[in-house]
């Protein structure tokens, strides 16, 4: 239980606060509309459907405010930088921005459904009331015209249209109705194209359809402009509804009951969303400015197994370890930005990315680059970033466990290189005393470019007598019979047959219990940070192990889990 608090406490707290605000808004506005005197006459026609429509509207206002914030990645980077004083746990919450964005989106979807159903009921009942189906008071209220010295309550004014089509006609001829339908449609398209299946396989569909949010927010801001939710205004002499509700035939003819006046509420949604909308516009502007800055190619290398290494130089570009950038290549696609973790260290005067062929965009890029002559500049590239993720925190932990699966090893390439440079310069910022590195990979080919790096590091460590600073274990999960034979034959050799490194390659998946036990034994009093860049399934396993092997006692070993996500 204590371990759960350490690893998930702050996240749960934030979620509880968010949910509490939602519930508060819902209940507050529900009772505001359900008990407020100024809505007595409105409620007479609509019943509690009025409150059931207005309460989710308030929750929607709040969540539409929130939804734009987690995707302003430059703002988040800024927050991360200014939170350097506030401890790791706070900054870790910023890792989960996408999950929060999705959660808020679900809430928006749910509340839209409730809001829409309540309004379906409202429109139907307004329609019936207008046609005199209900009692005398309802009919009298609905008859109030919008002319001269009377103001209307029932927004359905004309009765010429066929009674069954009136609701549809009403919805499509009022601002609120039309914007409502359009933005709900936009929302549905956004949601269906954001399903995991579509997002993971056809990113472009997801990305382009998601831009319908522009229509969503535009419609949302104007949704209340028609002011059709009417409340009773004070008149002179005052109209007391308790007394006058039974005397509707005499309104305007007896002094106690003048004709009641109604007015619509001032539209408020824009007040909620204008701030985040401006922040988001600034965010996109910043991305555009970055895109226009010149990026030069220092070197282009095509690695085995269809991995492309690009070394780029950009004025004023400063990075930290394990950060990522977004790349845009107008020659391939004008609008697409794709994230790549940087594989170079901040100490170098360039930044590099290793790009694997994984989809349309990457494949086209690799084939385009393959056809370039030697030494030529690559296609024009826009770079946005760098953006920070958990890897920045690696040096804060005394002991770090780095786990990279397949191409997920890239942020750790940056970290290991940075360690090498910091060591050479004896940089005091390096709090890390010990690093355990686990690389899981299916096949040997992808090892090559990284194996070179490890060989260099190995040599340097030995030269300085710091052999036990870095412990690395390589796991080949896709081995077969021929591998096993090959290894058996070369068993006695000093270096590993696959990678040429001193450390032998392990076969199969790591036994995490053993690994965590070993780390705990060798570091009995430390805070250990576990960093993963790889599949979610592995993340769940590691998270559980971190929780299992952490001790609530602050003097003993504690494991913190950090995950990269794209």
């Amino acid at each position: 239980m204590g371990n759960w608090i350490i690893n998930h406490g702050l996240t749960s707290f934030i979620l509880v606060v968010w949910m509490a605000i939602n519930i508060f808004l819902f209940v507050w506005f529900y009772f505001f509309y359900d008990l407020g005197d100024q809505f007595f006459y409105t409620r007479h026609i609509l019943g509690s459907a009025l409150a059931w429509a207005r309460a989710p509207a308030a929750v929607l206002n709040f969540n539409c405010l929130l939804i734009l914030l987690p995707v302003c990645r430059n703002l988040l980077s800024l927050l991360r930088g200014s939170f350097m004083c506030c401890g790791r746990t706070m900054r870790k919450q910023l890792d989960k921005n996408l999950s929060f964005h999705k959660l808020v989106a679900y809430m928006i979807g749910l509340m839209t459904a409730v809001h829409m159903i309540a309004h379906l009921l409202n429109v139907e009942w307004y329609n019936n009331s207008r046609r005199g189906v209900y009692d005398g008071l309802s009919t009298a209220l609905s008859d109030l015209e919008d002319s001269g010295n009377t103001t209307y309550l029932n927004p359905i004014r004309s009765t010429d249209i066929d009674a069954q089509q009136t609701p549809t006609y009403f919805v499509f001829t009022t601002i609120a109705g039309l914007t409502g339908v359009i933005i709900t449609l936009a929302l549905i398209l956004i949601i269906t194209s954001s399903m995991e299946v579509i997002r993971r396989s056809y990113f472009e569909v997801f990305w382009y359809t998601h831009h319908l949010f522009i229509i969503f927010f535009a419609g949302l801001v104007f949704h209340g402009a028609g002011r059709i939710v009417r409340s009773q205004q004070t008149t002179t002499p005052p109209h007391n509804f308790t007394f006058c509700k039974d005397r509707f035939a005499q309104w305007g003819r007896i002094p106690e009951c003048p004709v009641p006046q109604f007015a619509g509420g001032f539209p408020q949604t824009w007040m909620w969303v204008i701030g985040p909308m401006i922040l988001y516009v600034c965010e996109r502007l910043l991305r555009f400015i970055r895109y226009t800055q010149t990026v030069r190619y220092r070197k282009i290398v095509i690695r085995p197994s269809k991995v492309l290494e690009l070394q780029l130089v950009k004025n004023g570009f400063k990075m930290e370890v394990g950060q990522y950038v977004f790349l845009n290549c107008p020659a391939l696609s004008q609008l697409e930005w794709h994230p790549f973790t940087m594989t170079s260290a901040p100490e170098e005067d360039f930044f590099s990315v290793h790009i694997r062929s994984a989809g349309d965009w990457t494949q086209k890029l690799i084939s385009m680059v393959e056809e370039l002559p030697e030494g030529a500049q690559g296609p024009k590239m826009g770079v946005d970033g760098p953006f920070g993720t958990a890897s920045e925190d690696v040096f804060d932990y005394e002991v770090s466990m780095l786990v990279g699966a397949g191409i997920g090893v890239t942020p750790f390439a940056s970290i290991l290189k940075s360690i090498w440079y910091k060591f050479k310069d004896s940089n005091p910022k390096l709090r890390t005393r010990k690093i355990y590195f686990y690389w899981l990979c299916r096949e040997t080919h992808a090892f090559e470019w990284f194996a070179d790096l490890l060989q260099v590091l190995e040599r340097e460590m030995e030269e300085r007598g710091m052999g036990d600073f870095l412990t690395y274990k390589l796991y080949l999960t896709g081995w077969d019979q021929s591998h096993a034979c090959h290894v058996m034959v070369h068993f006695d050799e000093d270096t590993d047959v696959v990678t040429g490194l001193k450390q032998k390659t392990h076969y199969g998946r790591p036994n995490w219990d053993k690994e965590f036990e070993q780390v705990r034994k060798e570091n009995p009093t430390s805070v250990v940070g576990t960093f993963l860049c790889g599949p979610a399934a592995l993340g769940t396993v590691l998270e559980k192990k971190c929780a299992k092997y952490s001790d609530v006692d602050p003097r003993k070993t504690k494991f913190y889990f950090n995950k990269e996500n794209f």
Partner: protein
Amino acid sequence: MGKIEWAMWANEQALAAGLILLTGGIVGVAGQFRGWQFAAYGVAAGVFVCLLEYPRGRRNKGTSVERTGQYCFTVCVKSFGPLTRNYYVRAFLYAGVCVPGGFMLATVLGCVCLGIASLIYLGAAIRGEQWEPILPRKETRKPVGESIKNPPQNPPPRPPAEMRRKRAEDLEGAAYVNPISVTANE
């Protein structure tokens, strides 16, 4: 966007449309709206669309992810053969099914969503996509290791017969004991 299978998105959109049509229909019937008959139609159409769309089709490239418990639905949908395999049929079917939803407010949104799904399916059909069921493939038994099929042709290597024979001067050192004593010239 060359490799996109539009049918995947059309499927999500149609499923959502079915649910929306169903919800709108339920509200219309439960609230006894004017034109509740259209709402009742919405309920039926919504259920039909959901049942038809629930089983995901197999993707041409890449792994297909099934929805939970879709096996029974897959079998049902598959049994209609070309009617369900062809996306032109689906596109025009949905275009037709969605029209009555437009006659009543509660089902209008479902109608429009289904119309959009129909358009995406039309796009998928034009690109030649088809609905293939996701069914577990018959496992081909891996052939048992080759060595078992071919028994060894030769006996195991042994030293020649003269060396194997028990030597008179070294009876204790022999590898076997004779059940019947053997002496020369008896």
